[in-house]
């Protein structure tokens, strides 16, 4: 089987269309970044509290919102996540409500607000109880007359109960019937000292403002440095203009991806930054494959113009580009579709990034080389001719020796 055998597409001839396409997306992204949604930084960078809650039934968002408002959390943001039948909500608070002195105050208020008033003041919520508090309750009531090894036995039973809740029932019991696998005496103790709320907390993230700021600076540094590192490497391996063209293309990809997050108002978390860095590497890969071929062809085809060489090179590598991008896209798409909620932002960034990264290496990076050569030829008043690649060629020679 073979796609794109001997393709002969005039990519450079259509460069204005693609430039227009890139401009539209970049400008739309920039517009959203500066005038619309801004940079939707997640809790990781902004600082704040994120509580990921699973309910026993489909949550009524208005009701949840009113419960939180009653507890004074009017600014809490609610977001439905995952498949609807999972009954999951993400509740987030900005850092204003969680000072560093009481970092977990926001979380505690959210949980208390959702729990409402306990049906019996002496009962605790089993869905949000730690194994320690289950252990304490069991040890006090001593339902199985454990005797001397009570500590060990009740610790094991408490762990079993918590595991049952978290591993078998997805983090929340909907009725005491689900505890039937346990000793009836134990269940009785649980029923007398616990009640079941309609939710369980699956995940809590609290980031103080100081750490958020620190992470933000680190993320900018990481992106900036990796671009610089690649520029230097390409400068060393090819010529400065190749490095510049590749970095411009990667910058274009980053801008459009971040712009897409902004336009869709999706939060940018630490893992999204990891995805963006990965796609800079990936997009760079694609660009290098094309550049390597251009360098090779410049040596072989002395009579052709650079524009023609670039066109031929893109066509020659097209099959590989489409295949690789297609396959990587396939794996990333599987991550996006099946990877679950936690990886949603990460895989979304990769899905966009691979499409745009493949596109930019063909339509942005390669044309820049030709444009640069045209500009230089104009400036020197010379007729356009293939860029001789002195640096690269001497290195090739050195290698051949």
């Amino acid at each position: 089987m073979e796609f794109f055998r001997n393709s002969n597409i005039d990519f450079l001839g259509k460069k204005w269309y693609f430039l227009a396409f890139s401009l539209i997306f970049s400008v739309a992204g920039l517009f959203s970044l500066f005038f619309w949604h801004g940079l939707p930084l997640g809790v990781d960078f902004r600082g704040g509290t994120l509580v990921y809650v699973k309910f026993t039934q489909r949550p009524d968002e208005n009701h949840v919102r009113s419960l939180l408002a009653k507890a004074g959390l009017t600014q809490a943001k609610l977001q439905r996540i995952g498949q609807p039948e999972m009954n999951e909500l993400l509740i987030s608070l900005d850092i204003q409500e969680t000072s560093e002195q009481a970092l977990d105050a926001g979380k505690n208020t959210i949980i208390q607000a959702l729990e409402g008033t306990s049906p019996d003041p002496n009962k605790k919520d089993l869905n949000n109880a730690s194994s320690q508090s289950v252990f304490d309750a069991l040890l006090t009531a001593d339902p199985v007359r454990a005797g001397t090894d009570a500590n060990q036995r009740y610790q094991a039973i408490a762990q079993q109960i918590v595991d049952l809740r978290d591993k078998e029932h997805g983090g929340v019991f909907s009725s005491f019937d689900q505890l039937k696998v346990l000793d009836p005496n134990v269940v009785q103790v649980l029923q007398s000292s616990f009640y079941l709320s309609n939710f369980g907390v699956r995940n809590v993230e609290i980031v103080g403002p100081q750490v958020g700021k620190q992470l933000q600076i680190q993320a900018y540094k990481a992106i900036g440095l990796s671009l610089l590192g690649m520029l230097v490497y390409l400068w060393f391996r090819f010529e400065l203009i190749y490095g510049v063209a590749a970095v411009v293309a990667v910058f274009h990809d980053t801008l459009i991806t971040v712009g897409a997050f902004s336009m869709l108002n999706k939060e940018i978390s630490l893992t999204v930054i990891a995805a963006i860095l990965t796609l800079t590497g990936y997009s760079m890969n694609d660009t290098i494959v094309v550049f390597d071929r251009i360098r090779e062809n410049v040596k072989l085809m002395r009579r052709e113009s650079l524009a023609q060489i670039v066109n031929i090179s893109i066509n020659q590598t097209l099959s590989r580009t489409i295949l690789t991008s297609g396959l990587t896209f396939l794996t990333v798409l599987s991550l996006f579709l099946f990877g679950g909620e936690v990886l949603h932002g990460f895989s979304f960034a990769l899905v966009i990034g691979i499409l745009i990264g493949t596109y930019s290496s063909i339509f942005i990076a390669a044309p820049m080389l030709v444009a640069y050569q045209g500009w230089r030829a104009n400036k020197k008043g010379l007729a356009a001719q293939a860029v001789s690649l002195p640096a690269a060629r001497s290195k090739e020679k050195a290698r051949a020796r």
Partner: protein
Amino acid sequence: MNKNLTWKTIFIVAVMLVFLFGIFGIPKSLSKAGLTAAVRERISLGLDLRGGTHLILQVMVNDAIKADSDNAVDRLKSELRTANITYAEITQPDPNTHPEMISVKGVPPESSADLRRIVQERLPEYDLASGAENSWTVSMKSSVLEDLKQRSVTQAIETIRNRIDQLGVSEPVIEEHGLGAYQILVQLPGVDDPARVKEIMQSTAMLQIRQALDGPFSSEQDALQKSGGVLPPDSVLMKGRYQGGPGSGDRADVWYLLSRSSAVTGRDLRGAEPTRDENNRPAIRFMLTSDGGRRFGSFTGSHVGDRLAIVLDNKVQEVATIQEQINDEGRITGAFTDQQAKDLAMILRSGALPAGIRYLEERTVGPSLGADSIRHGVLAAVIGLIAVIVFMLIYYRGAGINADLALVLNLIILLGFLGFTGATLTLPGIAGVILTVGMGVDSNVLIFERIREELRHGKTPTSAVSQGFAHAWVTIVDTHVTTIVSAAILFIFGTGAVRGFAVTLAFGLLANLFTAVFVSRVIFDAHLNRHRAGEPLSI
């Protein structure tokens, strides 16, 4: 097969076996359950996959500096007094932001040489600088300051580790986090109740036993009045809790006048355990080291009939009359619950924190979410892998088998590496594995496309294969180096899960260089060896 090729094949099989051992170790049984258990044992999962609590703490290093310079203020005062040098005041002008600075005012000019000598001789870790009008600044040397800050972080880590160990958390991570920021990272797998752990970690638990000179007073004013408005020398006033007789519900704060120095401190403790007092109330029994016991024995021996105050975190817990000489054991009673007595005994056992700590970040992943994440990640990985394997077979036919073998070996090496190094697999790490699958075939595609091109130009299979590898090699190195650059930067700047991703990605790429270039080539060569001339290559 020629000899060279045989050796290469043996090498590849050996590599595969070594890394398979990395993944599974030597499994007890080859059943699915046995293998899963073996993998669980070898590959450590990140907190995001197994559930648990992750905390970042800030060590308030200024506390430790303050304690040190408080001490220096005392020493300076007594040295000046001994040397008969008069001074107007010795204060810490800016205790919150610059606790290392001490200001000395009103030393007469003729005594300045003596002052300089005293600071040099008696306070060697401090520098003296003169300011305007007979005022001086004594400040901690910057190297000493830096050392003290770093030492408080190390000491805090040690103390926290002791406390966590006693809680029985398995495989906790307690380490310095971020260079020079005086932060500590604490990861507690399986801990679902961060509140209790935090309380135990944060407690400074400074135990002191001092002589009680007078009290209780109902207010600070009362205490001052008794001694005529100024505290007697070498004494301090401390808040305590009124331990009313039976039936008295009175819990008002009271003050005691205590000796300035302690008979014994938390450093002299050998052990502590929860117990009960004669009224069957929860209490803590403590045991002293032999040195501490000797000092405590001589102190209590010479102070029979005097009163003794047990001070915990600068609060008087109990005041008791010394009945007889006590050598190596004592008891702290107070209004404790059983749990409090248990936790407090544990904190005493683990020593005092050198400085307060503040929480900067807290993440708790429920085990249910972790289990979900593993399921989703593995599902995505399997689907992605199958899609790629099937596609390669259809698109490249015979050569597709080659690429698939290389891909599988790549995965084995990557996972085996995780097993060997103990690197932690995180959810983004699983994503890194999946991405490696996608990017791993890239090298094969580059090579295969090149071979196809060469075949189109009429080359023989043998020379097409060698030309294809030779041409593609340059490109493969370039693409791998750039991606490893970004992975390295991710590793340097990333934390936790992101680092896990960077490690998997970087190692996946290295493994890929081996499998796509070396292994693939050997498979081709082996195939070409048995290949009859003129027969087309299946690619």
